C-alpha cells in the first residue's frame, strides 16, 4: 500500500463519521507498526481482504465510544452484542467504500468481531501495518490497514 491508498481509507473513515453521526471525527497522523505488533481496544471488527490485494483491515474502539454511537442512532438495546455489531459495521463500511477506488478486485469478507483481546491468528497481515488514529468526541479508536 502506498500513501495514496492509505488516503483512500482515511477519507473513507472521515466520510463514515461525517455521514452517519452528529459529529465529525478527526483523523490523527497515520503511523507504521512492524511485524507482529498489534493494537486493539475493547471491541474489534476485522475484514479479510482478498483478490489482487491481500491482507486485513480492522477497526478497534473502546466500549464507551460504541455505546455513544448506538445512543446517537437512538438504539435502546445497548449491550455487548450491539457494540460488537457496530464495530463490525464500521469496518465493513469503510472497507466496502474503498472499492469505489480499488475496484471489485478488492474483495472484502464479512466482518469477524471480537470483544476483548482479538484472535488475529486466522487473518493475513502484511509485515507492516498502518495505524490510522481516529478521534471522535472524547474517544480514541483506530483503523488498522495491513495489506500486501
Amino acid at each position, binding site marked *: 500500500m502506498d500513501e495514496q491508498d492509505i488516503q483512500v481509507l482515511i477519507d473513507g473513515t472521515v466520510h463514515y463519521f461525517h*455521514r452517519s453521526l452528529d459529529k465529525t471525527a478527526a483523523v490523527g497522523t497515520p503511523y507504521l507498526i512492524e511485524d507482529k505488533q498489534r493494537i486493539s481496544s475493547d471491541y474489534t471488527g476485522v475484514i479479510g481482504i482478498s483478490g489482487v490485494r491481500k491482507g486485513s483491515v480492522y477497526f478497534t474502539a473502546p466500549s464507551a465510544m460504541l455505546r455513544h454511537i448506538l445512543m446517537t442512532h*437512538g438504539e435502546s438495546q445497548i449491550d455487548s452484542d450491539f457494540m460488537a455489531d457496530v464495530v463490525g459495521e464500521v469496518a*465493513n463500511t469503510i472497507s466496502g467504500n474503498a*472499492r469505489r477506488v480499488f*475496484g471489485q478486485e478488492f474483495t472484502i469478507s*464479512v466482518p469477524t468481531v471480537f470483544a476483548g483481546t482479538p484472535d488475529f491468528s486466522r487473518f493475513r497481515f502484511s509485515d507492516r501495518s498502518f495505524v490510522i488514529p481516529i478521534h471522535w468526541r472524547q474517544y480514541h479508536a483506530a483503523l488498522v490497514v495491513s495489506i500486501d
Partner: protein
Amino acid sequence: MKLLVVDDSHFIRNRISRAVAVHRIDSVITAPNGMEALRLFQKESPDLVTMDITMPGLDGIACTSAMVRLNPKVLILVVSAVADKATAIRALKQGANGFLLKPFSDDEINDSLTELLRGAGHG
C-alpha cells in the same frame, strides 16, 4: 405496504426499521441473512425490500435474483457499503430497483424508498 429489511447487522436492521417514515409503509419485518430473507419473502409477501450485499451464506445479489424470480413486481433497494460501479450494475441486472450506499442518514433511506415507490407508480 410491507417492507422487508435484510441485513446481517442487527444494528442496521434496527436503524432502518426505526427510520422508515414513508406513509405508505405500515409494516416492517427483518431478516439477518439471505436464507431467512427468502423464507420470510415467501411467507409474508413484502412489497418492498432493502437488501444488504455482503452477508454470510447467500449474498444480497443472489437473494435479489431469487426474490425477483418469485415475484417480479417486488421493489428492491440495495443498501450496501460496497461502492464499486460493477457491483451496483450487477445488482440492478439481477432485478434491484435502486442502490443506496452506506453510510446513510435517516433522510436518505426515506428519500430512496419514496423515490422507488414513485418510480413504480405508487407516488
